[in-house]
């Protein structure tokens, strides 16, 4: 269904202006990516450090990617990133959906006050709790292990509890009551009815958590020390420190670290945009 337009008078001139603006802004937004990819395919430093800069390489040199893969143990980094991202996503989905379900459907004393507490914790700056958390993990010997980066996920995240609660609230209460009369336990109602129904919201949570765990820098920076524990992002940072003038290698590495996020985003972009809209607006 074509929507009737309100903001613009539907004249051709305005359509042309709109498209011109959209297309030129798109080129601006894409340009950095293009620069990243083309630099990564240039042959050697003479081509990179030439003036004026050439946007496109003389010939496409895919050797850079091979060389970058040889220079650093990227596969180990990839393994660590996958472990952290996978476990933290599983943890976030389980713990947040359980809490969200309780806040949305069950009646218990202090529920609304506790939910207010959940929302309040979203306002607490990341750095407030950071130092004691670091000390806690160092006391129990978790420094230089992957654990501090995924174990806390099993204790829920305020942001995702909020997002999922909004979704569970939209499921009619009659469904809950009917299942109860049919003899379902509360936990059965959760995992047989509510959890499957919330699939779109769960997918949103998975994607958002993937992107944030995959791209996290501060956590790995303070918790991981030995190279075989590095994540891809931390590996890229170390690589940058060593090859800081070899921009063809650097951009090839940057490209490789970026691609997984791009793929996940393109698979689930509708869900992401929906999720951001829920947390942003419907408070």
């Amino acid at each position, binding site marked *: 269904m074509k929507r009737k337009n309100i903001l613009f008078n539907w004249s051709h001139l305005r359509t042309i202006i709109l498209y011109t603006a*959209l297309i030129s802004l798109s080129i601006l937004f894409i340009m950095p990516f293009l620069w990243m990819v083309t630099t990564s395919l240039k042959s050697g430093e003479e081509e990179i450090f030439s003036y004026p800069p050439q946007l496109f390489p003389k010939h496409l040199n895919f050797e850079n990617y091979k060389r970058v893969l040889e220079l650093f143990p990227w596969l180990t980094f990839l393994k660590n990133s996958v472990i952290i991202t996978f476990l933290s996503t599983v943890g976030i989905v389980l713990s947040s959906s359980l809490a969200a379900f309780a806040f949305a459907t069950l009646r218990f*004393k202090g529920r609304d006050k506790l939910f207010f507490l959940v929302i309040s914790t979203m306002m607490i700056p990341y*750095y407030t709790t950071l*130092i004691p958390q670091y000390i806690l993990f160092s006391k129990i010997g978790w420094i230089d292990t992957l654990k501090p980066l995924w174990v806390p996920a099993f204790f829920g995240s305020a942001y995702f509890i909020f997002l999922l609660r909004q979704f569970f609230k939209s499921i009619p209460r009659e469904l809950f009551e009917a299942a109860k009369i049919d003899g379902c336990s509360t936990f059965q109602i959760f995992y047989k009815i509510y959890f499957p129904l919330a699939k779109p919201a769960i997918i949103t949570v998975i994607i958002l958590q993937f992107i944030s765990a995959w791209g996290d820098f501060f956590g790995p920076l303070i918790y991981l020390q030995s190279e075989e524990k590095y994540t891809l992002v931390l590996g890229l940072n170390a690589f940058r420190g060593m090859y800081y003038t070899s921009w063809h290698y650097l951009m090839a590495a940057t490209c490789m670290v970026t691609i997984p996020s791009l793929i996940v985003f393109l698979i689930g972009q509708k869900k992401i945009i929906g999720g951001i809209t829920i947390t942003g607006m419907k408070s």
Partner: protein
Amino acid sequence: MGNRSYFMKKRSSLGKKERLEGYLFILPWITGFIVFTAGPILFSLFLSFHEWHIFDEMKWIGIGNYKKLFTDPLFYHSLKVTFEYAAINVPLVLIVGLLLALLLYPKVRGTSIFRTIFYIPSIVPIVATATLWIWIYNPEYGLLNFFLDKIGIKGPDWLYSTEWVVPAIAFMGVWTVGPTMIIYLAGLEDIPKVYWDAAKVDGANYWQRLWYITLPLLSPTTFFLFITNLMGALQTFAQAYIMGGGGEGFGAPANASLFYCLYLYEQGWSWFNMGYASSLSWILTLIILVLTIIIFKTSNKWVYYERS
């Protein structure tokens, strides 16, 4: 009568069960809240009254850290750097986010492709973004100065310049405007179309409708985005850690990019002054709290809430 009391009893026992189950379901979150949020907040306050190099004995020094902090030039300097960044970054991101949302709102053919293009940069890991932009900002061989040169502007040294390093990092933030744009778009779509129709009938042009109808009705969205973006800006870390001095980091050049959280990181993890770092984190928390309260208190002056 007997029946009724039976049901009452049954109901109350069901209620009791539901109550217990409720607590059971949120138990992981409550545990996490105590261990990872509430406990650490209190402990960090406790720590901030101690001198503690992580390997030594903890020493109570009362408000010593806070006294030291208020005579520490780097504390003031890093605050200034961070607020300068926020003052450039937040308005820019809000304006560009709104502009893109307004362009995407008419839902012409291909809108979803444009929306994807504008959104994609914000999902790139920040270390990758920062690395890429160091290269773009390269004074001699970078893309930006090349284009500036083409239109006859001699570009500055960006990340190598004490004057430009913070604005450069702030400008980069515009590239990751995606979430702000999406929330503005959702805000626009929530505005009932009758308002625009009515104004159009009354002869208001696009700019008048934008100024007198769209912007006031969007002000709750702007309010929300202003707070979240400001909080994010005040906690900027990775960009500062990586980009200053064109990849040197650590506040380069000459501490010009010593953001507040970078200074906190240096105190905590380069020098392991956990007590002092805790007092820094508490001051940041207080600053954010006070700013949020001020913004909330003044919001009735500029945020328009529709009365239903």
